[in-house]
């Protein structure tokens, strides 16, 4: 007779039943694949995600997946490998966003809206044309539990490329991110930094969206980094915390999916949002006063300075 996991936890001798509930999901190949994919994406989410949050690229992270549509359809129509077409399409979109975003009066978010809605519209029109093979839409909405070995190898390649590129670009990104307007005078190049970040984002989206679906891609790229920003003040600790948080949310979400029978992508994404809210609530209770006036927190300062009335930040 099958017992529900809750019942197992409550009735059995806690010891062995507990371990059984804990380990049972990972005895299945499908869940092992999902766990590996989530962990790999967590590495990208930790490192790249922090730059996405600091450069305010969330809109691009949310929408770029839709822009690979026309490349995909054109590749399918002309018999090229699908990944090649999608990769070309999404890279063109990323570069276009970086370039159009520099036009005064337009701004980057408007550029994202213009480019993504145009390319998505083009993709839909092409995909519905009589010459297109059916079932193309399925390529846009991945399923985390249907991750194949090829997807995993691609994801590993992505992690390597992303981490190495970010390490090489680090000084440049830091210079521009710190102060965009004066970056040029100390050897930074805002446009190059934007293009580099957006191309990395495009690459991550391309590889991840097949296995994970567009919802989870934006969740992993923005959520853990935004949460880590609440906890860490320096960049490297923020990246480490973000990576750990993605692992935590990934594993928690997969347990939830296994035992509650919720779609895996949705439950991991839900866990990421929940984690942000918990940390936000927790940090408010713990350090509200200290945050508002950092002087108060420093015990080395004289009492008169620490008890100054709080200054309203502009």
């Amino acid at each position, binding site marked *: 007779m099958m017992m529900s996991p809750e019942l197992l936890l409550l009735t059995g001798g806690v010891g062995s039943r507990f371990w059984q509930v804990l380990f049972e999901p990972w005895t299945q190949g499908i869940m092992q694949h999902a766990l590996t994919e989530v962990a790999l994406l967590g590495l990208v989410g930790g490192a790249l995600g922090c730059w996405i*949050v600091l450069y*305010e*690229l*969330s*809109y691009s*992270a*949310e*929408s770029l997946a*839709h822009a690979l549509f026309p490349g995909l359809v054109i590749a399918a129509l002309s018999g090229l490998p699908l990944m090649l077409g999608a990769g070309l399409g999404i890279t063109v979109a990323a570069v276009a966003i970086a370039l*159009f975003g*520099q*036009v*005064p*009066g*337009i*701004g980057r*978010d*408007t*550029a*994202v*809206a*213009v*480019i*993504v*809605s*145009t*390319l*998505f*519209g*083009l*993709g*839909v*029109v092409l995909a*519905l*044309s009589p010459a297109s093979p059916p079932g193309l839409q399925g390529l846009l909405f991945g399923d985390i539990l249907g991750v194949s070995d090829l997807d995993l190898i691609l994801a590993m390649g992505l992690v390597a490329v992303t981490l190495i590129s970010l390490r090489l670009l680090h000084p440049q990104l830091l210079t521009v991110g710190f102060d965009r307007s004066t970056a040029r005078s100390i050897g930074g190049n805002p446009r190059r930094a934007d293009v580099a970040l957006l191309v990395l984002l495009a690459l991550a989206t391309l590889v991840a969206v097949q296995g994970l679906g567009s*919802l989870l891609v*934006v*969740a992993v790229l*923005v*959520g853990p*980094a*935004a949460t880590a*920003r*609440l906890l860490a003040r320096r960049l490297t600790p923020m990246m480490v915390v973000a990576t750990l948080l993605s692992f935590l949310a990934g594993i928690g979400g997969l347990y939830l999916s296994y035992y509650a*029978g*919720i*779609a895996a*992508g*949705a*439950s991991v*994404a*839900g866990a*990421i*949002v929940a984690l*942000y809210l918990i940390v*936000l609530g927790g*940090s*408010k209770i713990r350090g509200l006063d200290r945050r508002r006036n950092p002087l108060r927190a420093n015990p080395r300062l004289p009492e008169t300075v620490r008890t100054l009335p709080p200054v309203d930040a*502009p």
Partner: protein
Amino acid sequence: MLDLLLEPFLLPFVQRGLVEVLVLSVGAGLLGTWIVLRGLAFYSHAVGTAAFPGLVLADGLGFAAPLGAFATAMLFAGALERLSRQRRSGYDSLTALVLVGMLVVGIILASDVFGSGANIDTLLFGSLLAIGPGDPIFATAASALTLIASFLFGRTWLATGFDAYAVRSLGFRSAVPDAALLLLIALVATAALSAVGALLATALFIVPAATARLWSRRLLPWQIVSIALVAVEGTIGLWLSVESNAPPGATIAMLSGGVFAITFFLRRLSGTRVWESD
């Protein structure tokens, strides 16, 4: 020749679509300029997409879809406002997080509670060729409210768009007008859902306003050109979609994007230094 061109517009369902897009053009074009000016593109995309759980609920419980969509759009705007007031995370990160939260609720409701299917897809993508009798009325109301609010709050919106901090010192109060702008975007985004769907609402709002921005430096001409552009692109897109049997929303998006690209390169050829950043 002209008869042949106008022939699709004799069909009643095309006429309804035409009325809808023309009525909507006033609200969408006008609001588009404010969205571009204030950098609210992500918010307007997200508030439309966040309607998903509302559409699922409306479908599952059997009430009017625009009602569900508007209710969830308001919920989205409220949650975002509440979280952003703490100034702990960037506005764009919060927009993404709240949107992900809403979509997760929508997916769980759709797959595990109601088991809803194709109906939601139609609503998410929308169609100008399947406009119901209530839709133009809703669109008219949304456009009228946009006009009224632009007269009332336009000066504050404009001033805040240039310098949010100086506005208070100039004696404008910007909390109420700002909330009104966010509310209005939610309303017009909901009205546009049935016409072009959530994913392409930005094509109707933002692309024409961005195109018009390349030609105009002053607000009033920008707004007029923007409204005219939505109306013209909407009409031609509708005609094209009837002729080519493609979905109207996607056709309008493609057309508007093409017009933006052509405008951009014309401006560049004519020697305007559009790349020069500030």
